[in-house]
């Protein structure tokens, strides 16, 4: 496939899935891979809702029966689509790792999953030792930002590195070049932003909601750290400080899916890299990720259709401008696109 003057491999779309019944619909929509979550009853008995097995709550967006994982994998494989399961809590204690290793072994050997996505570097090492035939992807929660991390993951035997949301297209392109021939790559293209760097965020969404979403609405004040700054805050920096907090509120709102809204056509608002797809595809990234395991089936499908439509254009030879124009037209929320805060790849926003 050619993008501009460059010959690149076809990029897969990685799609969230949370029920076997979604397979046919999403496969028909152009999914190239699925990722899912599985939380067995034993985990819930041990930890309740206090320690999430993966980056979603214990119920929403997760499969709760292993038979459902098996059925999901069977149906996906029948359509040539691999399935990856997320075990991407920021860390697992030694006891949790002991619990998870045989569970993952069974998921691979008996339920047919094709690999797992992990965030805990120590767990990655242990998985590679215990289950050397299993494909292990390094989650975005590992915050892989530099070539040292690509080398590190390649040496540990990771099959894929999923780049964090904060990495720009140029950074992705450079790391894809570093990874080429050693490690597959994956970048975000749609939904579910993070105000902070996910891999370094030590907060939790459980019980109290996302801290970042809360911040603009709680009492806050700007503190000058020096006597000179105190004077500036009474003078020339007074208005910029006010604008800073207003901009922060807007930024958080956009990152939070524009208040978790959808358009009247059911298209999810929120973080989006559609108009950067031309450049993303040219990076050689292996897969493009749509977030949102806990979304409704309709939202999953409408997101997939948008990505598929623009990627088909790019792969069909459209120019950067044509692809970007179509992306904005499909979304049909030009005021959001123009705000600039909704883009994953803001440096590429046109």
């Amino acid at each position: 496939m050619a993008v501009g003057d460059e010959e690149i491999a076809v990029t897969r779309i990685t799609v969230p899935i949370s029920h076997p019944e979604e397979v046919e619909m999403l496969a028909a929509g152009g999914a190239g891979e699925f990722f899912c979550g599985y939380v067995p009853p034993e985990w819930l008995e041990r930890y309740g809702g206090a320690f999430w097995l993966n980056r979603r709550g214990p119920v929403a967006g997760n499969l709760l029966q292993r038979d459902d994982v098996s059925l999901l994998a069977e149906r996906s494989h029948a359509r040539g689509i691999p399935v990856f399961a997320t075990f991407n809590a920021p860390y697992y204690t030694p006891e949790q790792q002991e619990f998870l290793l045989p569970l993952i072994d069974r998921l691979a050997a008996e339920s047919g999953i094709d690999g797992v996505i992990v965030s805990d570097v120590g767990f990655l090492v242990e998985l590679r030792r215990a289950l050397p035939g299993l494909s292990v992807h390094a989650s975005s929660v590992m915050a892989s930002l530099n070539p040292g991390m690509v080398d590190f993951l390649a040496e540990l035997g990771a099959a894929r590195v999923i780049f964090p949301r904060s990495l720009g297209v140029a950074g992705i392109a450079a790391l894809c070049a570093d990874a080429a021939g050693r490690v597959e790559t994956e970048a975000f293209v749609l939904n579910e932003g993070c105000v902070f760097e996910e891999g370094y965020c030590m907060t939790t969404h459980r019980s109290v909601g996302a801290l970042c979403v809360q911040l603009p609405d709680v009492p806050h004040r700007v503190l000058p750290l020096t006597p000179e700054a105190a004077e500036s805050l009474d003078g020339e920096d007074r208005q910029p400080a006010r604008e800073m907090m207003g901009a922060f509120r807007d930024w958080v709102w956009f990152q939070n899916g524009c208040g978790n809204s959808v358009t009247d056509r059911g298209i999810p608002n929120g973080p989006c890299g559609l108009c950067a797809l031309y450049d993303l595809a040219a990076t050689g990234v292996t897969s493009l990720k749509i977030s949102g395991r806990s979304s409704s089936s309709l939202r999953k499908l409408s997101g997939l259709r948008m990505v598929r439509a623009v990627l088909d254009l790019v792969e069909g030879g459209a120019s950067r401008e044509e692809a970007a124009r179509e992306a904005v037209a499909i979304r049909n929320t030009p005021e959001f696109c123009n705000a600039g805060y909704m883009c994953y790849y803001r440096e590429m926003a046109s």
Partner: protein
Amino acid sequence: MLQTKCGRAVSRREAAGRGVEVAISFPFLDGPPPAVLRGEASLAELLDDGQGRPGAGAGRDASASIASAGAQLAEALHRHLPGTVPKRVYVGNETCERLLPTPQAVGSWAAAARAGRVALSLVLPPLTRDGLAKAEDVVRTLDGVEGSEVVAGDWGTVHRLRSRFPGLAIVLGRLTHKMLRDPRLADRFDSPLAPLSARSALCRSGELAPGFRALMDRYRIVRREIDPFLQPLEEDEWEGRDERLSVHLPYQFVTMGRGCLPAAMHGEGKGRFVAGGPCRTECAKYAVEFRVPIPEGNGAGRRLLSLGNALYHAVPPHVVDRVLARLSSRERVDRVVVAVHAGATNPGASLPAPAPGHPWPSATRKSP
């Protein structure tokens, strides 16, 4: 001759602080004051203005949080580690690669520290490709500097530095210590109502598991840094490891972004909050304090301090006391890292009179 708890003979000066090394961290570009590098600054001078008011140069509003945290910490350090003097200086910022010091600056600080018999630690944030290349140049200046070390903020940096600098002392920074530190909830994890297994999992990390141990061996990591956790860590998290531990005080790291709040002050429209975007180092002039409610707190809240692109929580005095009180009984923890923030190292300037804060009502949400 005095003896350390490990049986090593020490001078009277080293014995001060009960064998626990105190390091002072300067996370902003200005670097440490000369007196600190000469080994002549006391904790009292650094954290307290002599009248129970720390951070003599801090802006007036900073007195409410940054300064009071410093005063309480100074008092606690005096009580638990009497006679201690800072023997190590941390330079560099743990969350922003824009604040990476230059090789020239680090070279100059290293020379001054050597003369003052003070050890130097270079702190590195999570690094991008460009940041890693710059960091390698800076690290090179530490070659041969006795007692120097690098505190790494990501495993990619660890991997690269170990391969390029085989003899370098590498410390794992606290950002790599994956545990929950949400001030809204963390101390509730000690609740007797929580399932025992859940409480345990929230009061320890995965670092004692075989895979992580293998990484520590492979990369010859001799020290790990941790936060002053609100939840009481399980004893194994402190002692069940081979490496030494450093504990930070009084600020607990909470979260960071690659988009920066203070930088948005002078940012232009869409350019705000872009990862790695331009700034005027507003972080050296301003912080933002948030007060977040805690569940069932009847209006009570916790203060979060936005310093640069990161959020911190100054832990309450009882947590500082809990950490310091147990140092003498712990074999692995032999260093306390104390943060000194901009404006708090200007002895001689008077503290401006207290004044009302600047409660900015955020701008009205834009209607789409």
